[in-house]
């Protein structure tokens, strides 16, 4: 890939082999043992926060196990993209049928199922059966954020690997490496700011880096640019809106919402995601309260995807938050 | 309010973009004069012309019975009409006083078809 070709850097600099992955030493060591003797590899479960290398490692395994034609024998699925477990079953069925022919060359086909903790327990039960019926010809690599959300029967059939978040200095190193390759200057302060905003998610850090480079247009990435980029992508207004709602001030919260939707052009899904994130940062809520509100957000996230009007769904969500403030006040 | 006859009207210079837009909508042009034959999008045309002329536009109506051109503004159903000021056929005030309106419309219609074919 030449430097002049414009692609997402998160993809361009994704390690292609396990050797290239710099951190996760223990994970890599164990996996290498399986790769030496593929028949011994069970299904795998990768657990960890976003941007910690789970998909990368899964793809590396596929490449290393299946050789140059690996794409033909690898199926990538995302739980949120498929409409229900039946679709997953269909796709797995079709896939195993198709890849049956060339099994002489490879030990098995690989199915990477991302966001598996977003599947309901019922769906996961069905998934376990699918894993079983196709285990002669396929190995599953399940990816999730929280392994606790994966049902026991699946966990017991998998080798579980935890992907811990990168340390700050490792992220900075990685970012500087990319900057150098892209012939850019990344001063320390800008790098630190990016790392801060990325919250342990290397992919997001790289996206911020790339966006800042484009936005600033200069050889040197300026810290101010980073702020501006993040502000545009994740404005503080979300926090403001949340606080207003929790203070019982519906109309002002709704105005801020409209602002987010018009001035910042955020979509309903953007806003809900950020509300979810901001919720956990609020110091004046107890964990139980956060959990309860997160449930409400979840409910409205779902309605958002089905409904016709985003502003109605989000206003309704804000109204629920406003009610919450009142009941809290009553308890005091 | 500007009155236009769909069979021929003039417009001030409007630039190539607008001209192309009008043509796409169905307005035709020949020797300095514009006319509209295809009425499928005449509502949009009316709006566009209104913008170009910076004025409300009213097209003339053609009477089904006497054939004369007249305006909607005199009509008693002006407020309720769904297609007012658009260039269609209708019945003018004078003719609407007559008795057997429908029959007359039909007769005139027959003649029009005969003449065309």
């Amino acid at each position, binding site marked *: 890939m030449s430097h002049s070709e*414009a692609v997402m850097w998160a993809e361009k600099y994704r390690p292609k082999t396990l050797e290239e992955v710099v951190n996760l030493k223990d994970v890599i060591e164990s996996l290498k043992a399986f790769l030496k003797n593929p028949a011994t590899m069970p299904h795998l479960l990768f657990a960890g926060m976003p941007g910690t290398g789970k998909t990368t490692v899964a793809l590396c395994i596929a490449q290393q196990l299946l050789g140059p034609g690996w794409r033909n024998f690898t199926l990538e699925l995302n739980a949120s993209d498929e409409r229900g477990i039946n679709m997953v079953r269909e796709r797995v069925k079709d896939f195993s049928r198709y890849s049956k022919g060339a099994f002489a060359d490879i030990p098995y086909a690989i199915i990477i199922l991302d966001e598996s903790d977003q599947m309901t327990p019922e769906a996961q039960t069905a998934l376990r059966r699918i894993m079983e019926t196709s285990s002669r010809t396929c190995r599953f690599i399940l990816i999730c954020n929280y392994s606790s959300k994966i049902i026991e029967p699946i966990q017991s059939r998998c080798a579980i690997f935890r992907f811990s978040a990168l340390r700050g200095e490792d992220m900075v190193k990685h970012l500087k490496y990319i900057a150098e390759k892209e012939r850019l200057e990344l001063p320390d302060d800008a790098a630190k700011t990016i790392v801060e905003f990325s919250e342990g998610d290397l992919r997001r850090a790289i996206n911020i880096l790339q966006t800042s480079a*484009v936005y600033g247009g200069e050889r040197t990435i300026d810290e101010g640019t980073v702020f501006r980029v993040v502000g545009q*992508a994740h404005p503080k207004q979300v926090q403001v809106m949340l606080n207003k709602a929790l203070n019982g001030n519906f109309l002002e919260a*709704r105005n801020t919402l409209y602002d987010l939707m018009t001035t910042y052009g955020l979509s309903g899904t*953007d806003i809900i995601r950020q509300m979810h994130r901001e919720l956990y940062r609020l110091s004046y809520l107890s964990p139980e309260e956060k959990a309860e509100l997160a449930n409400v957000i979840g409910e409205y996230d779902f*309605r958002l995807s089905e409904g016709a*009007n985003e502003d109605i769904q989000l206003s309704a*969500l804000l109204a629920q938050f406003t009610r919450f403030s009142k009941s809290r006040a009553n308890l005091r | 309010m500007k009155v236009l006859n769909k069979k021929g009207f003039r417009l001030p210079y409007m630039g190539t973009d607008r001209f192309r837009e009008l043509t796409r909508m169905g307005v035709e042009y020949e020797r300095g004069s514009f006319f509209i034959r*295809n009425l499928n999008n005449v509502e949009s045309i009316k709006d566009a012309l209104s913008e170009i002329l910076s004025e409300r536009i009213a097209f003339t109506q053609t009477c089904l019975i006497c054939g004369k051109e007249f305006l909607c503004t005199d009509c008693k159903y002006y407020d309720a009409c769904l297609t007012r000021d658009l260039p269609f056929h209708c019945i003018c005030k004078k003719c609407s006083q007559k008795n057997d309106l429908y029959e007359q419309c*039909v007769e005139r219609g027959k003649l029009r078809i005969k003449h065309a074919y």
Partner: protein
Amino acid sequence: MSSIMWVEKYRPRTVAEVIGNEEAKASFIDWLRKKSRKRAVLLYGPAGVGKTALVHAAANDFKYKVIEMNASDTRTEEAMMKIAGPATSLTSLEKFSLGIKGSLLLLDEVDGVFGREDRGGVSAIMRIVQESRVPVVLTANDPDIERLRPLRRACRLIRLRGVRIPLIVAFLQKICLVENVAAEEEALEMIAQNSQGDVRSAVNDIQTLCEGKRTLRREDAQRIFVRNKGFNVYETLRGMFSAGSAAEAYKVLDGSLMDYDTLLLTIHDNLPLRYRDPEKLATAYDVLSKADVFRGRVGTENWQLLSYVLELLTQSTTIAPKEYQPFNFIFPPTKLTLLKWTRSERTLLEKICAAIGSRCHVSRRFANSEFIPFLKIILGRESEQAAQMAAWLGLDKESIDYLRGKDQQIGADEDEGIE
């Protein structure tokens, strides 16, 4: 006492007898008579304005035999072919397209065929249009020409509109004359106005009113139509918000002239003014959000879900009926609410997310929250880099424009010019 339907009895037998839409009539005859014409024509317009009537009348005038087919009844290609073939059990289109000279194929209400579920219905129609050697006439109700896009190139489009009031009055006058009914002009005007251009319904209405009577007075017409006068916006809002119960609010809703989409948005704007108490507001909004969800599910097909939308709307305005206090309504809906998330925008966003998802190994949902905000900036300014990036992601121009925030109407059609 007449035992025959007046819409049948007074059906136009010749083109001259069809009232209204003179221009469309002329255009249609022109199409029919010309040898060098597009093989198919699409007559579109609201119900009851004379589309099918025109076809039959013209066929009568110019001696064509009409072979009729209701496209919404037959869905699969096979079924359509069977019916389209003449009575001698021809099943292949080839044989059919020899056509009986002097016949004309009428496919009524093709809107039904162009839904998403149709297996082969669309392609069947296109094949008929392309291969038929006899003229093909299609009719459609739906003004949403967007869905009928595949037909644009193949057909001449002719639009029919609601018939104007003086013409409907004239027609009703003639009917009353023949039926020996003394009708007050004002009564006829009311019927005509109420029909909103739909001649068929006007004729049905007048038959209903004249059943067993010799006179038709203004009061008679008025009594039936007072419900149809309809509540305007303020009456609707006042009625719905001040109603003592959801059932009462429903009566208002039923008699309202407002379309439910506008009503949904208007209620949304006014809820916080009606309910000051956060508890009640939250409850009302929860209900309204459910109404919106159902509205989203209705889409273009599941009309039966609409009843849930309406029911929920009435519930949302009557949460605490005893606590109603008059307030100034917000109307029309605030500008933002007019930026509602249209279906085509949603589909476009899904398309973009799918493209990102497959390139960057993430789900569509993830792409939406984690990539789109950045991509909006990266692709924000036109540059060679941006173009390359877009190409790498596989984004088309529409997607790029959308990410740039261009205020284009997604999916807008270029208006048809003269062919």
